[in-house]
């Protein structure tokens, strides 16, 4: 029980509850089930891609290209649907994932084989992939009426009041919970991020791990690309600009160490949910849209400060305990 309070995830959870109560006190409609379903829908895609980002950050890297890869795979899916409406939806989903995997593996190869630092690699591919979106669509949109009904409705189909979009993201969460906690490769991701030298001594293949995390992140992003354009029923060249920063924010809020080695999926999902709640709450209590972005930023920094202060306090407690035992 004591350990529970020490967990960063728990702190964040309390903070989320705090915000929920604070806002619902002013705006009771915030507590409506419908509103929470909305928040879940809004954070589903962010949670998925943030899990991809999490794996990369845990190895000590970062991926700035997720927004662009998402747009490129999403645009490809939309164009495919527009010009070949006969292609079944699951094929489109698979192709979208495949494109994401390809884009991610390019990042992975550049980082692991050419040894270009992840931040430089993905800064480059961020522009390349975004540029390719422009080339692909020629600057035009794919709008709702150009998409087939099945394509548009896929993320909206609901079962027990929850949309397939949320189900897909839950599936991704479960899959990666298993991958990161119950497979050797998953644990080796944490090993590489914790201590590169030590991981070599125990025989972990650094290049393989780097390649895997970027590729998997790409795969998730590819899937997210399809879900994004289908959900918003629009594919445009500016899709998901700046989205990479949101995924990084979700990770950092969720307690992922930006220097690598630690971070959990539960933390990241809570981090994404936190961002969704803040965004939603600000709209609900009628904060002017001009202020929203700035306030969001403040709250993110506030959450991180609370997190680090708690962490430091725990560390101090440990030190104190040890020095008294001696």
């Amino acid at each position, binding site marked *: 029980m004591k350990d529970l309070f020490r967990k960063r995830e728990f702190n964040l959870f309390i903070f989320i509850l705090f915000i929920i109560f604070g806002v619902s006190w002013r705006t009771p409609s915030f507590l409506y089930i419908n509103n929470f379903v909305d928040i879940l829908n809004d954070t589903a895609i962010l949670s998925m891609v943030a899990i991809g980002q999490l794996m990369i950050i845990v190895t000590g890297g970062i991926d700035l290209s997720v927004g662009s890869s998402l747009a490129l795979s999403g645009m490809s899916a939309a164009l495919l649907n527009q010009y070949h409406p006969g292609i079944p939806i699951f094929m489109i989903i698979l192709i979208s994932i495949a494109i994401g995997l390809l884009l991610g593996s390019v990042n992975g190869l550049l980082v692991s084989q050419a040894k270009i630092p992840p931040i430089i690699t993905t800064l480059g591919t961020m522009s390349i992939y975004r540029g390719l979106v422009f080339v692909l669509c020629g600057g035009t949109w794919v709008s709702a009426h150009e998409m087939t009904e099945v394509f548009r409705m896929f993320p909206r189909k609901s079962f027990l009041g929850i949309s397939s979009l949320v189900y897909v993201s839950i599936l991704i969460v479960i899959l990666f919970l298993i991958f990161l906690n119950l497979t050797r490769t998953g644990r080796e991701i*944490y090993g590489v991020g914790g201590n590169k030298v030590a991981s070599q001594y*125990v025989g972990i293949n650094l290049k393989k791990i780097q390649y895997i995390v970027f590729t998997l992140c790409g795969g998730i992003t590819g899937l997210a690309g399809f879900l994004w354009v289908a959900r918003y029923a629009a594919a445009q060249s500016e899709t998901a600009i700046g989205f990479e920063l949101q995924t990084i924010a979700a990770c950092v809020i969720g307690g992922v160490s930006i220097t690598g080695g630690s971070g959990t999926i539960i933390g990241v999902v809570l981090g994404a949910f936190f961002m969704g709640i803040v965004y939603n709450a600000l709209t609900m209590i009628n904060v002017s849209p001009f202020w929203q972005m700035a306030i969001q930023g403040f709250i993110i920094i506030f959450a991180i400060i609370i997190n680090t202060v708690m962490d430091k306090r725990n560390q101090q407690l440990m030190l104190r305990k040890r020095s008294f035992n001696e």
Partner: protein
Amino acid sequence: MNNCIIKMKGIKKYFYGVKALDGVDFKVRTGEVQALIGENGAGKSTLVKILTGVYQPTAGSIILNDKPVQFPSPQVSQKAGISAIHQEATMFPDLSVMENIFMGHHIRNKSNGLLSWKEMKNKTQILLDKLELDIHPDTKVKNLSIAQRHMVEIAKALSLDAKVVIMDEPTSALTLKEVEYLYKIIRKLKSEGKAIIFISHKFEEVFEIADYFTVLRDGKYIGEGKIADITVDKIVQMVIGRSLEQMYPKLEAEQGDIILKVENFTKIGVFKNISFDLHKGEILGFFGLVGAGRSEVMQTIFVWLGTVGRKPLRR
């Protein structure tokens, strides 16, 4: 019964033309503690890294149980039963004790191929009990003391079923009590027929724990023998290549006024009640193990941050 498990013959290692090892012979026997002695830069760590597959020798051969072998990578060496506790930190601070032990060879369920944390926890507990360690398997390594980390590394070597355990300067960060405890563990391993390579440049330790020694100097093989047949002076001569009197000529120094006085200097959890006087014209030495708090005292005096106690007087 003490048969030769590893024989290294004529090992040479050049780094870009610089000779780090120049024709070194080295033997390890089961049930024996073999000390590898030499000054810093004598080539001890390089030799160990060749044995553990981190470096490849430029020339020479390694014979394991009468068969010539090659260790192209650390895993191959590990599979052959050689495990090292390295001088530099080779742990994962953010991960648990259990995971530090099993990183690289996590135990999997036979039925579904997924990791079996339950089995790993049981095995960790058995290993920790064997070493009489009072640590919970779930404790994060960053919350352990340096001595405890060493013990976890030993537990890791045992989990790999190592036949040869290499300890590279294992005592440099330990208190006397902890060193005694380490000796106890080493003797236990020895009685189980494991071969131990003990690297140190502290002679008392070597005479206390080792059965056999090999001396290196400037990357060259100088000699070997039984600890029982040699005196400290002889080994010192082998290590430094001349007699000890020439090393530290005594100089007279004049002590002046006190220029810095520190009293009851404390930083919670780091050091407490540090008092000393610094006189003009003297060299004041600070002794202690790694982690004893020497650097922290100095840094805190310079920065004067977050301390309780009396302020230092300046004149």
